[in-house]
């Protein structure tokens, strides 16, 4: 009962923080004072009805919570990746958002042809790993299919030179997960985690496991798994002590807003239900 009440209070708090003023859509955020809002999807590229329905829900959400861009956690396309598939598995389901000039930024998943980095709507600039800044946030988008030494060195250097108060890592394979299918990628964690900690990364976003899960801060870093925006492994998670929240009953995506030293977030199901919400403080700025 107490836990349920606490969960509702968190949802209410997050709704207050993230919601726009009544009757007025706020700016999506450009780093000039207003919150930076963005959406997160993962493992979405099925081309099937649920992906399309999530796309419609993302559009409806944008009307009330206008996010500036969308992060893609990888597996942006499953199966065939011929020209027609770019239309069926990406351009149609997210067509209204694309026509509103909302950019998508993709990470490569293990089902993605690496040459998709040349597809302009994925905004990868022809690179399999890259960084981009949005207002107070710098995102580091990795290719965890092939975490070779040059990429590790690049990440270390790029994080070291970043001056933004928020550093967010985006990569397909989760280094913490309680999903039943894959579990955590411990081999990747060994390589990645020390670098993320050393450079003060505030949040990690992943996909791969076809569920939604939020992991409590691990050595200071909270992690999100958003891997059910197209694919879904219904019930495919066994929550553990480090599970802050999980949802595997339906497809889901996430929206987040960064304002000052806080990031508010809400995970939204295919049908529009808020299945998780909360606030995360930037451990770098809040410690100062």
């Amino acid at each position, binding site marked *: 009962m107490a836990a349920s009440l606490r969960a509702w209070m968190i949802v209410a708090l997050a709704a207050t923080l993230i919601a726009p003023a009544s009757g007025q859509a706020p700016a999506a955020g450009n780093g000039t004072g207003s919150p930076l809002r963005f959406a997160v999807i993962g493992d979405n590229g099925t081309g099937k009805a649920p992906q399309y329905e999530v796309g419609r829900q993302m559009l409806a959400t944008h009307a009330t919570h206008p996010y500036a861009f969308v992060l893609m956690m990888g597996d942006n396309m499953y199966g065939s990746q011929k020209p027609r*598939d770019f239309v069926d598995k990406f351009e149609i389901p997210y067509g209204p958002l694309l026509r509103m000039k909302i950019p998508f930024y993709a990470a490569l998943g*293990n089902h993605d042809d690496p040459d998709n980095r040349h597809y302009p709507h994925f905004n990868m600039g022809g690179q399999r790993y890259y960084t981009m800044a949005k207002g107070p946030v710098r995102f580091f988008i990795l290719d965890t299919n092939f975490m070779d030494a040059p990429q590790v060195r690049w990440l270390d250097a790029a994080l070291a030179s970043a001056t933004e108060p928020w550093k967010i890592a985006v990569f397909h394979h989760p280094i913490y997960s309680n999903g039943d299918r894959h*579990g955590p990628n411990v081999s990747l964690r*060994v390589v990645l985690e020390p670098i993320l900690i050393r450079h003060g990364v505030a949040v990690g976003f992943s996909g791969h496991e076809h569920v939604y899960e939020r992991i409590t801060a691990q050595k200071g870093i909270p992690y999100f798994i958003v891997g059910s925006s197209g694919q879904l492994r219904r019930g495919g998670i066994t929550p553990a002590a480090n599970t802050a929240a999980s949802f595997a009953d339906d497809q889901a995506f996430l929206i987040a807003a960064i304002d000052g030293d806080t990031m508010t977030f809400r995970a939204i199901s295919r049908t529009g239900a808020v299945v998780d919400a909360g606030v995360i403080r930037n451990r770098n700025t809040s410690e100062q």
Partner: protein
Amino acid sequence: MPKAAICVARPLGRISHPRGQVPGHGRKRRGIRPISRLFAGIRGAPAALAVLLLVGGAVAVSAQWQAPENLAVQQFIQATRDYAWLHRRLESTLAPLEVTSDPAAIHRAIQEMAAAMRAARPDAAPGDLFTPAVAPELRVRIARALVLHGYTPADVRAAERAEGVDPALVPLRVNGAFPWIYGTAMFPCVLQALPPLPPELQYRIVGDTLVLVDVHASLIVDLLPSALADLTDR
């Protein structure tokens, strides 16, 4: 030196991970004890001896792992560089693959690149780069990397099975297109142990086969069968 690796293969292979999950890309493995508990029931000198043997073995493996590249490996690295040089030379004769809003153009450019590489290497065959000289070294490196990080070949196979694709259904052949449908990703620890590659090339493991892929042409460059050897079987 290989003997030391054999000694530690099994104990290290039983290292547990959070909630009994197989690390890396693997599925959960229930009922495995954390390494600290491996010694829970052992007391006194036997325990100390076991720890010393394990640590000594691990150090020996690590020392071997970081040894200078032998001649066969150096030749392999040079062969990948030669391949990359050929790739770049041919690429310069084709229309550049640029970021374009036309996926068909991307697809066409990749196909043209693959066709050019096939034309330049019409007789390419398994073993051209993964030569008989370097093949055993690569197999041992993969096996050692897995052992050193508490994995077994079964973990790698389990990761593949989790993707739901049966390698037997999609044949692999040199100069053929690499099927990304496999959804394979490399264990970082294995990647660290293998020789570095130029940007045009990446490794993948499909079934028990190590595949060298030209990722700018989605082309299979070479195949190393039985790459997932178990050190304890050797």
